[in-house]
């Protein structure tokens, strides 16, 4: 499949603007964003006016728009990196591709710029294979297939809910790791897409991600805020929490989550050591989350994504609420998110 074959009308590219000047970002992506509809959502806490170059088919949403759609009190749900979720909420498309505004196209080992948008859509359009691991990775790509010993009944795969891309240069490491290895840059281009097996948990990064909004849109929840959440990824966990929920719900509903290609090139921003100075709540919250998700079983009666989110929120409140107020807040946010999703999407 090439970019000529994907249906651009089915895709929204959602960009959360944490920086006011998007000129460099959008210019670098121009050839790959061309023909697509863009949704740019401005961090409600960003004071400056956005600077968006000409030549893009773009709708911009700012704090005022948010308040109009969800009300002033709910607009706080979309501050910082979570602003992009507002874009997911108001989109009308089948697929969403979301890239952080500090990333530019990467180069593959042959020196060609990687069309991350097309690769994400290809990942989403092809089945996932979460029930059995294929040692040659993506069996549907050119030049590959299922290996000997792969059960035939599992070869048609399941719908792909999400495509998690990776990052060259500045990988999505946490602050302690990056602070310890200040010079480390990711130079390994791993030429593979694979399905993360069912039941396996993983940290899904929001930096370079795409998903099937029609299939699992409500499951991408802007819910977990760590105390002192900041404007650099080292100071957030919202995407990791969202990813744990998304993966669990996908497993429950029989969908797949892919990881691997495409790569983006992630630039420097912020200071890992500086982020370390903040009391890093994230670590503690992750430690508590893991056993929770590991033992969690959603009821068989939860067949719709929205119901799964509500059930998950209930379980979070019951089992994690007493551990940390952040979890109770997350549970509340998840319930509120579903209410907003239903109201925004039913009014068309």
């Amino acid at each position, binding site marked *: 499949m090439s970019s000529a074959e994907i249906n651009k009308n089915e895709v929204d590219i959602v960009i959360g603007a944490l920086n006011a000047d998007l000129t460099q970002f959008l210019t670098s992506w121009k050839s790959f964003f061309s023909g697509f509809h863009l949704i740019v959502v401005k961090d409600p806490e960003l004071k400056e006016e956005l600077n968006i170059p000409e030549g893009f088919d773009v709708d911009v949403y700012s704090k005022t728009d948010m308040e109009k759609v969800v009300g002033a009190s709910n607009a706080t749900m979309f501050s910082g990196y979570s602003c992009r979720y507002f874009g997911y909420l108001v989109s009308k498309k089948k697929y969403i591709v979301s890239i952080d505004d500090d990333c530019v196209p990467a180069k593959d080992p042959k020196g060609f710029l990687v069309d991350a948008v097309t690769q994400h859509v290809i990942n989403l359009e092809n089945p996932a294979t979460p029930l*059995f691991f294929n040692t*040659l990775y993506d069996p549907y790509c050119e030049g590959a297939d299922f290996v*000997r010993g792969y059960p035939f*009944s599992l070869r048609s795969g399941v719908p792909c809910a999400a495509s998690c891309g990776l990052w060259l240069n500045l990988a999505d490491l*946490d602050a302690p*790791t990056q602070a310890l290895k200040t010079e480390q840059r990711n130079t390994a281009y791993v030429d593979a897409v694979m399905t993360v*097996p069912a039941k396996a948990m993983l940290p899904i990064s929001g930096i370079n991600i795409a998903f099937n909004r029609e299939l699992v849109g409500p499951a991408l929840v802007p819910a977990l805020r760590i105390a002192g959440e900041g404007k650099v990824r*080292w100071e957030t966990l919202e995407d990791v929490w969202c990813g744990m929920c998304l993966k669990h719900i996908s497993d429950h509903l029989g969908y797949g989550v892919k990881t691997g290609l495409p790569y983006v090139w992630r630039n420097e921003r912020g200071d890992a050591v500086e982020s370390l100075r903040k009391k890093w709540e994230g670590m503690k919250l992750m430690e508590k989350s893991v056993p929770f998700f590991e033992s969690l079983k959603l009821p068989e009666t939860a067949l719709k994504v929205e119901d799964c989110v509500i059930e998950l929120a209930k379980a979070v409140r019951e089992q994690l609420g007493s551990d940390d107020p952040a979890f109770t807040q997350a549970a509340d946010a998840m319930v509120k998110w579903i209410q907003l999703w239903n109201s925004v999407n039913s009014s068309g």
Partner: protein
Amino acid sequence: MVEPANTVGIPVNHMPQLKDELDIVIPTIRNLDFLEMWRPFLQPYHLIIVQDGDPSKTIAVPEGFDYELYNRNDINRILGPKASCISFKDSACRCFGYMVSKKKYIFTIDDDCFVAKDPSGKAVNALEQHIKNLLCPSSPFFFNTLYDPYREGADFVRGYPFSLREGVSTAVSHGLWLNIPDYDAPTQLVKPKERNTRYVDAVMTIPKGTLFPMCGMNLAFDRELIGPAMYFGLMGDGQPIGRYDDMWAGWCIKVICDHLSLGVKTGLPYIYHSKASNPFVNLKKEYKGIFWQEEIIPFFQNVKLSKEAVTVQQCYIELSKMVKEKLSSLDPYFDKLADAMVTWIEAWDELNPPATAATAKA
């Protein structure tokens, strides 16, 4: 198109890691000419050659290699009546090599596997990579999106729980193949010209609870951690099935590794697989397996080993009982296989008495 590496002129590895702790097990019926190409990387190591087929044939081993060779007569002599568990006229017989080895690690490779080239054109020392994989931990409890976090230049990503970053011991390192991919017969028939040219530069841990098709062509493992579970089943002559030996072992070792918190890695290293076997012959061998695996997979996915099973042997015996109980109705073959699994463990323990018996870290 992808070519094998030209290893002429590469000096023999003068710092071979684990030289005295690792055996290389090679099953063969033909010859071992392929070892010439592997000389720089494999010559320092001891070989265990398991000769399948006609024992009166002499297998020529290239000069300079230190080896012990076992043919069918030797297997019968050493194991007596227990030799019935070792397959005849099938490369599954290689597991006899695992049993007689006295080393901690095993590397097994097929005699049609050559040295591969990495994307820069450099010859891949597959054994060196397997050793790296085995000597550093695995991470089966949480998937790291940057793959093996212990590799040079990689690490755990943001959100990866700190309590899980120490990892667990690695029991198995499963390598891959460039050129002729390991396809089943139906796929070979549909895509006879397909070649694997994609070099995926990653090693990763297969998550706990996930099964995979383990190929025995390019495989290494810690014999002390998982050896007794590496039984390659009853295949070949007199058996209703072939080309499922490594698959069977792979399903068994994975459920046992998951139970004992050991890791299984897959990915690098690549070897260059030179020979495509005849797909029609393969189809005849695999035919029953294609249907049976539909039942076998759910069986393994639902296996629950008891808390009391703390050694590999205990796990394996428990597994054999479940095979007899749950799979015999599929075909009487599984009844025989379950018995053979027990025989295998008895033979293993006989050849590897308790002082050196494999015990697993609980």
